[in-house]
């Protein structure tokens, strides 16, 4: 008869024996040695029926297909860009994955995405050698032109997003900031400077307490205590930001079309909301602790 030596949600370190006997099955972060199951990562033990796995508490981001991440342009290639994703491997954003618009042959690629710019994108493919294909085609995927970027450990991202995005939407509502959380641990924040700082403080707090239970209540208390009331300018500034971008729009072809087709901008903006929800629901399973 198999014997379980530890409990669900216990902090566990490499080499610890979790269970004895053949009744349990090792999954992510655990391995079998003889008739024992041991841990090979630091994290929280998660017991799902017979399956024993570990929810990582530390470690760098490893690229995964379909993850929405935030990356930085580090190089411009002959027909694409090289993107740093805060991991050991850089991604390639090919020209045809950059925009729905036609990009002319020989166009200056730095006009579309310049060096050091941050982009929200999606990982479309990861090979066995961890070569990454990246795409910015899709709803909600875009270039980030203002705001702040902060980095957190990628293992804390599910907690920051929360179940069905509950945590991040709570932060958004309280601070009025726009927040996009990349799975690779890069977070983009935009809003009033004071609110931005509050957002950062909140995220840092979540990061520190990511392994604890009842975090949502704790964060709620923290936000209630430190809440900064909205000023009129908060809304005004948000309005300003929503206004169409100035003439130096990066997409070469749209420039000429822009005036005749104002709708072009709209479906993009309108599709933003459901997308964020989609992203949240995707991380739902990951968000569970």
């Amino acid at each position, binding site marked *: 008869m198999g014997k379980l030596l530890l409990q669900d949600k216990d902090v566990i370190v*490499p080499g610890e024996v979790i269970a004895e006997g053949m009744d349990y099955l090792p999954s992510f972060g655990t391995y079998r040695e003889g008739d024992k199951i041991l841990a090979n990562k630091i994290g929280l033990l998660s017991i799902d029926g017979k399956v024993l796995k570990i929810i990582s508490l530390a470690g760098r981001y490893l690229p995964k297909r379909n993850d929405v991440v935030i990356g930085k342009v580090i190089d411009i290639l002959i027909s694409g860009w090289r993107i740093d994703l805060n991991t*050991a491997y850089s991604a390639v954003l090919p020209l045809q994955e950059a925009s729905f618009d036609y990009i002319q042959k020989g166009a200056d690629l730095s006009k579309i995405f310049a060096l050091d710019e941050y982009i929200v994108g999606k990982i479309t493919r990861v090979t066995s050698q961890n070569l990454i294909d990246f795409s910015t085609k899709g709803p909600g995927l875009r270039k980030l032109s203002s705001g702040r970027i902060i980095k957190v450990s990628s293992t804390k991202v599910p907690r920051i997003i929360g179940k069905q995005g509950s945590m991040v939407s709570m932060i958004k509502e309280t601070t009025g900031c726009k927040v996009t959380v990349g799975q690779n641990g890069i977070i983009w924040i935009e809003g009033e400077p004071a609110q931005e700082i509050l957002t950062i403080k909140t995220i840092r707090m979540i990061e520190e307490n990511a392994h604890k239970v009842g975090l949502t209540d704790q964060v709620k208390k923290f936000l209630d205590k430190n809440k900064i009331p909205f000023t009129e300018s908060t809304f005004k500034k948000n309005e300003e930001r929503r206004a169409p971008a100035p003439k130096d729009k990066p997409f070469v072809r749209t420039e000429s079309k822009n005036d005749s087709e104002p709708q072009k901008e709209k479906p993009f903006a309108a599709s933003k909301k459901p997308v964020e929800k989609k992203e949240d629901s995707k991380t739902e399973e990951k968000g569970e602790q």
Partner: protein
Amino acid sequence: MAYTKRLDGRKFDETRKIEAKTGVIKNADGSAFFKIGKTTAYAAVYGPKEHFPRSQQDPTKGVLRCNYNMMPFSGTGERVRPGPNRRAKEISMVTTNSLKAVVDLSDCPNAVVDVFIELPETDAGSRCAGICAASMALADAGIKMKDVVSAIACGIVDGSVVVDLDYLEEAHEGDVADIPLAMIPSTGEITLLQMDGKISRDELDEALKMTLEPLRKIAEIQRKALKERFK
């Protein structure tokens, strides 16, 4: 005269006082502090990250790269010349090899995991303290590894088998043997075994047996320190 009583009053199978802590270097992906007696080791882990020079990349798995360094003021009076030297290079190599046995980097081909071991104060047993700190730092960095590695020295001082020699014992007159030893606690496999001096086969057997208990204790301390961070 035989060595019947240890200079600092310890029992023959007793280690010096051990302290351990993780998460001591905030910028690093993982870090640890390990102190045994007057020997202190800090270890910081960065990675997996892009591996340069490219010629050293391994397309089948990630590379583990350890660097052992004694700080200039870490000795007992004489300034230790900074920078890599023959001894530091050797210890870096044996440390890497002893940790390679547990670390699994097959998920990150062409990448590198850097381990920096710094010793602000040394009183013998520095490579063992370095290995203990480094294995804790690796676990703290979320690297996949089948176990931590625990290390301690054993040997003989003038005919007596002892565990965890300090500098005065290493420098004792008469026959002294100093054997640093690293082990994977869950399997009992030995990943480092070196020797300085002279020892008979029986004495070696006895010395190795004597280290088993202290090694298990060290493993306990390491695991406890790793968990402490998530209290």
